[in-house]
């Protein structure tokens, strides 16, 4: 079995289902946590700071930022649960330990977790989309495709986070990933400000991060400026998923396989 084929196995969906059962019980508080924080940042930066700036082509800073916040929400929600949550499920709660006594392949567990993060990113991101639509910051029906792109963003962010959760031995070490990888990724992904004044080398680094491409797509969907280039950005995300999926294979197998 390879990590891409693992997405299409029945037990992968059952791993997803396990998380869904557990999540149902605290869904409301989970929604609140995952929405309130980005919303607070959005209000402060978009309307507070944004009152002092105009962004060429977008009018206000808040208009520029709003679609980008979908990317931020997807990254936050998928990264946190794929790192912190998966660590708990693997180490503290014995969730995976019992799964692998049943005929479940370790790669099915990983794939089930990616799909779960896709769901979370799509759900929380869509709620945020509804919020910015309420503020009149969404201008096209193309935005209805946002959940799909949110799901892809969730998967592509979940893979390295899950990898880290399978490598570290202490939950606190996950903060290295949050601080040294996730947060800088957010800063250079074009969520808060346009990157056209970036030096080439910095832009090259941004281009390497999946979030940069996701944000371009969200902005195009929300503004109705979809072009063939937008499709290529989506392809970039899909390709990143396929390539990244191989990254955790060894550690997942060594932690849970025989």
């Amino acid at each position, binding site marked *: 079995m390879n990590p891409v084929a693992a997405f299409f196995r029945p037990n992968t969906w059952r791993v997803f289902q396990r998380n869904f059962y557990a999540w149902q019980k605290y869904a409301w508080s989970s929604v609140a946590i995952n929405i309130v924080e980005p919303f607070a940042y959005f209000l402060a930066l978009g309307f507070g700071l944004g009152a002092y700036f105009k962004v060429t082509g977008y009018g206000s800073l808040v208009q520029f930022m709003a679609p980008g916040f979908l990317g931020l929400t997807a990254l936050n929600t998928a990264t946190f649960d794929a790192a912190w949550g998966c660590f708990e499920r693997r180490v503290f*709660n*014995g*969730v995976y*330990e019992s799964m692998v006594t049943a*005929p479940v392949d370790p790669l099915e567990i990983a794939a089930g977790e990616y799909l779960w993060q896709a769901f979370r990113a799509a759900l929380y991101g869509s709620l945020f989309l509804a919020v910015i639509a309420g503020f009149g910051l969404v201008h096209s029906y193309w935005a209805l495709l946002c959940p799909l792109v949110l799901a892809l963003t969730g998967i592509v962010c979940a893979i390295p986070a899950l990898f880290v959760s399978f490598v570290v031995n202490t939950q606190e070490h996950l903060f290295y990933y949050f601080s040294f990888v996730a947060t800088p990724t957010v800063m250079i992904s074009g969520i808060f400000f346009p990157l056209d004044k970036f030096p080439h080398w910095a832009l090259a680094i941004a281009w390497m991060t999946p979030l940069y491409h996701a944000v371009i797509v969200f902005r195009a969907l929300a503004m109705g400026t979809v072009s063939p280039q937008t499709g290529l950005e989506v392809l970039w995300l899909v390709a990143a998923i396929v390539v990244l999926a191989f990254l955790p294979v060894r550690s997942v197998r060594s932690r849970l396989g025989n």
Partner: protein
Amino acid sequence: MCATSTVVLARSLTKRYGAIDAVRGVDFSIEAGECFGFLGVNGAGKTTTMKMIYCRIARTSGELLVLGMDTSRDALGIKARLGVVAQENALDPELTVIENLLLYASFFGITGERAYKRAAQLLELLSLGGKEKAQVKELSGGMKRRLVIARALVNDPDILVLDEPTTGLDPQARLLVWEKLTSLREAGLTLLLTTHYMEEAARLCNRVAIIDEGKILAQGTPEQLIAQFAAADVLEIIDPAARLPVDGQLDGLIVRRERYGEVHYLFNHDNRVLLHRMNELGFDPPRHVARRATLEDVFLNMTGRELVE
């Protein structure tokens, strides 16, 4: 038991963790319908052997077939037909009792009404009826253990593998688990367990293997092992005045003699005969215990009475 078939076969099986040899070349075979027990102290290699059998860890060398399948090649095929009660319960604390069973059943392709029926039936069987909606953390230690056994039975396994099924349980909870396992054995299920409780092995197992420092020291039925490494009876004597007659004077009645501290263990075929002969010799043991030999004696005779740490 009529026609038997081998369900687990190990030859020269080893497991090495870095510089540590956890299992050092063990050979054993387990037949369908029997209850086979690995008996040994903590760190003897019992759990490592079990984990290789239920395909949780890879062997280092040797051969290991479970239900005719090689554990290193057909892990999923083997897991589909095993029931596993690992040392740690690993019950999902975010799910209820019934959800734990339904989720686990789904991994075997058992879903919907069929899964629900099976789960309810197993909860009843393990005396957990009425606990369907309980959270795992509300259950007592004994209930959790029985729930894990119920979970291991959802796929109607060919072998039930239990790693220390009653460690940490209070006496009543242990008796109940023993009763459940006995009825499963009597229903014809093959059981494979590890324990460091001699009483548990003697009560449940048709056959035991004594394992120490990664090696099997002996295997056979409890009766065979007692006959071979102890004797039917044992007389424990505390003899501070050192008046105990030497063996020659007891006409070879003593099969084996062990000593730990000031206690002498005299293994013999019949305590009454031995005591009678001692009286004839004018020795009336002041403090003594006359009892049947147990697996514990076999175990201590083989591995020594001193605590090795």
